[in-house]
């Protein structure tokens, strides 16, 4: 198997660059560059030299961890280099010349950790999110996932599901045993158990997905041409992200500006003005894209004086822009008055946006599920709801099998043996 390496600390230049080497050849490669290594799990300062000519590459802090109790499950070396581009490039070039060493592909460290059983699927996903986390709330949610919060919660649900399945299976396979209740009441208990578990799942699923934490809340600015959308975007982003001019239709396409404020990530999108009639084909495309962006928004900032559109799943803040202009001084009571030129209303807008963000982001004490986990648990919740609606135990069992399969795909574990364990542990079965 190849040994892989990559900078794990973000792109240089930086004060320090952490370069990780993982695989069967990691220790030999480190010895080739650094000579004798410090004891495992102890940091040591070493001069790194090019094995070809003995030239000094860097003086670096070096640590190594023997397999299997490492992040990847393999021998793992960490080189804390000085973070200049040239230093990092020179060390990488030397490593690449070592036998069976190559640069890691994207996600390869995590994939090896998964393959070596150091992580389960949900933990690996949490780790991916953690590495991408830029805000404090993101970090905390990702950390909870990486530490197995999703797995523990799913396993808790799964235990209940297995117990329900065991009851139905007992009814189907062991109906002639007197220990197994096989009557209307027993079936009702199972059905209400399915309903309760399904409802609990549905409640968690109704919570906002973790993607908004990671990628940012999507805010779309929309309104007629020349209503000040780009000006507002620049004011919110606190930089010249969009070109601003008095000419209507300056913004032809969507412009995105990521912003982090008070620990919340936002993606602000400026759109082409929604002109009623235009012959300009490029402007028409811009408008179509603006409408598409509105559909996909979490929050719409509406800058037109007309009533704001109602779009399912999109929250709307209606604004009253250019409030400093003559004749626009009266701000309607349901709108936030703004004047970027005068600096009016920006703070108020931010605080309103942040108030709305609380409903759009998962609460910190809540389980943060990503889209894949949500979809699978949604399948499970549907199957449980269907199970609760059936009266034929055979079909209840079939729906519970569906639910079990969905659960198993969240954590990557599957077994009918789990049901049998629950069944034989609970019932005295056998003539």
């Amino acid at each position: 198997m190849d040994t892989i390496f990559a900078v794990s600390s973000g792109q240089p230049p930086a004060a320090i660059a952490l370069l990780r080497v993982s695989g069967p050849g990691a220790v030999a490669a480190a010895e080739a560059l650094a000579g004798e290594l410090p004891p495992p799990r102890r940091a040591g300062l070493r001069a790194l030299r090019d094995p070809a000519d003995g030239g000094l590459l860097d003086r670096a802090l070096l640590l190594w961890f023997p397999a299997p109790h490492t992040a990847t499950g393999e021998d793992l070396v960490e080189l804390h280099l000085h973070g200049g581009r040239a230093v990092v490039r020179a060390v990488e070039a030397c490593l690449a010349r070592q036998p069976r060493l190559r640069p890691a592909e994207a996600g390869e460290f995590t994939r090896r950790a998964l393959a070596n059983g150091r992580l389960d699927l949900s933990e690996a996903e949490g780790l991916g999110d953690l590495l991408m986390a830029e805000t404090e709330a993101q970090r905390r949610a990702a950390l909870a996932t990486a530490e197995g919060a999703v797995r523990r919660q799913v396993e808790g649900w799964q235990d209940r599901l297995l117990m329900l399945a065991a009851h139905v299976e007992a009814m189907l396979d062991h109906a002639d045993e007197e220990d197994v209740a096989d009557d209307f009441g027993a079936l009702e208990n199972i059905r209400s158990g399915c309903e309760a578990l399904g409802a609990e799942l549905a409640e968690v699923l109704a919570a906002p997905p973790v993607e908004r934490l990671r990628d940012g809340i999507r805010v779309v600015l929309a309104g007629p041409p020349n209503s000040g959308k780009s000006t507002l975007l620049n004011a919110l982003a606190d930089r010249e992200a969009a070109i601003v001019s008095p000419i209507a239709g300056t913004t032809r396409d969507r412009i995105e500006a990521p912003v982090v404020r008070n620990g919340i990530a936002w993606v602000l999108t400026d759109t082409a003005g929604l002109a009623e009639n235009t012959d300009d084909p490029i402007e028409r495309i811009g408008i179509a894209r603006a409408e598409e962006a509105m559909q996909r928004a979490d929050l719409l900032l509406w800058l037109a004086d007309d009533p704001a559109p109602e779009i399912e799943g999109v929250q709307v803040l209606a604004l009253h822009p250019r409030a400093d202009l003559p004749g626009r001084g009266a701000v309607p009571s349901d709108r936030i008055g703004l004047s970027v030129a005068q600096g009016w209303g920006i703070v108020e807008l931010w605080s309103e946006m942040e108030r709305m963000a609380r409903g759009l982001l998962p609460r910190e004490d809540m389980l943060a599920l990503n889209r894949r986990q949500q979809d699978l648990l949604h399948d499970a919740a549907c199957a449980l709801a269907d199970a609760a609606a059936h009266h034929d135990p055979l079909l209840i069992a079939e729906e519970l099998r569906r639910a079990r399969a969905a659960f198993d795909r969240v954590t990557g574990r599957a077994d009918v043996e789990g049901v049998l364990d629950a069944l034989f542990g609970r019932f005295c079965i056998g003539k």
Partner: protein
Amino acid sequence: MSPFDVIVVGGGHAGTEAAAAAARRGARTALLSFDLAKLGAMSCNPAIGGLGKGHIVREVDAFDGLIARAADRAAIHYRMLNRSKGAAVQGPRVQADRVRYAAAIQAMLRGQPGLTLIEGEAEQLLVQQGSVAGLLLADGTRLSARAVVLATGTFLGGRIFRGEDREEGGRVGERAATVMGVQLRDLGLPMARLKTGTPPRLDGRTIDWAALDEQPSDAEPWTMSAMQSGRVLPQLFCAVSRTTEATHAIIRSGLDRSPLFSGAIGAPGPRYCPSIEDKVHRFGDRDGHQIFLEPEGLDTPLVYPNGISTSLPVDVQEAMVRSIPGLSRTRIVTPGYAVEYDYVDPRSLNPRLALGAMPGLFCAGQINGTTGYEEAAGQGLVAGANAAAFACDLAPLLLDRASSYIGVMVDDLVLQGVSEPYRMLTARAEYRLTLRADNAPTRLSARAEEAGLLGPERLAWVRARAAARIGLEQRFDTRLSASMVAANGGQVSQDGAVRSVREWLRFPGVALEQLLPEGLEDVPAALLAEAVEDARYAPYTERQQAELAEMRANDHIRLPEDFGYSAVPGLSAEMVQRLSTARPTTLGAASRVRGVTPAALAAVLVHARKVVA
């Protein structure tokens, strides 16, 4: 040397089915047994079928096997379990007269062309260049054959426990095949021990039947085999009693003398068929356990008390039996006992039930860690058909999980191995809605015909049935309006919709006679019931199709039997160990090995493509 293609060792349910299947495929077959008079003996309870098990019996019957036909000829009590539930979990079960059952099996074997019955003891496997070449018998006879099927039951390293008594051997009064056991151990096969037990046999003339609840045989004339119509023998009733607090006190007082609790038996026994001492110990809060008193035959007073399997000392067994209502004066004819025996880890087998370690050697039945006549018969069919294929260069008989309970069982065995004696349960089948006991011929007849396993009589029946089914499906295409259904008494809302008979059948308030009141008189009732059930569950079975397609797609990605898992990049030592032990033959099978992660599977797939390319 006598020339055979296939030799089957053991004349129990696996061995007889294996021998008959190999011979049906045209292989020159020998069936070797210690005692030909005991071919087809029912060693434990006198019943065939049940939930999951009845499914297997019907499947073996669809391949023109023996077990269902013998069961019908010997049946003295019919009972369809789960009758109130969907057909998928209905389990046909019969009590069979032991003597008549064995006689029926023996008659069929003697009538089977190409099959030679040999009485003797297998001494040693003959091996040439690492492959099976034949068998040496204890009397010095050498039999040559390219394939040997081991169906030796509990005779391998068998040890009987009854209280403080020990005895080497398999069933009562027979010799244990320990010589063969030693040779198999020498082959380096992974082997372990399991335990099973049996209750005391009672003298029915000393039971107070009048004091007990009766359970009559079913009135409906259903049969185990599709080739049988109606009842052959007079039907008896069973009776039901239960243990009491006094029984439990007697059992508890004897626990220290039970080999199960003294530590003498270490091997795991079946969870679904625990001994009575286990039940009393583990479920101490229950005030009684049910006992079914099952007559063993028409000409014998012996009664099998189903539910009190035990290895307690004889004096405790007697006291226990006499504490049970209706049995206060009952005499024990043969006391119960436990057997500990060797089995071969079935993960060393492939889906043809052939041992990877020695080409030509097949295993079926209890030797693979299973329990039950039906499980044994199903494996016998697979091993026999594939031994014939191996010896005569025919196509193998491979059954997947979507095809049959037999396929589920073989897949479970060769991929997961066993941790207790393996018994079929409908819970094990993910495609349970399609794998019904009543549609086994529809599912399997084509496979059986392809493999050349059907005799002429069965073949004629299969063809007639297929034609009738096509005609029936055309009738089910008939389109009816809501008002037409209502006019015939169907409870439907008048939504003006026009639906096919098939669609109407999904409505709870609609019966077939309200849809097709006439013209179905000539269709066999079983076929009609099957078609109605198909229509009823169609929405659910259709939903399974995607899942099934995915399974079959993954099962088309073949993994070589000598696939080197340790060479797969990124595979942990644990995954390498699990996969190397199970040696899955396809990617689909690898995905079913317990504990194998999706990531490991992806790594295996990538590597498999590289190796093949």
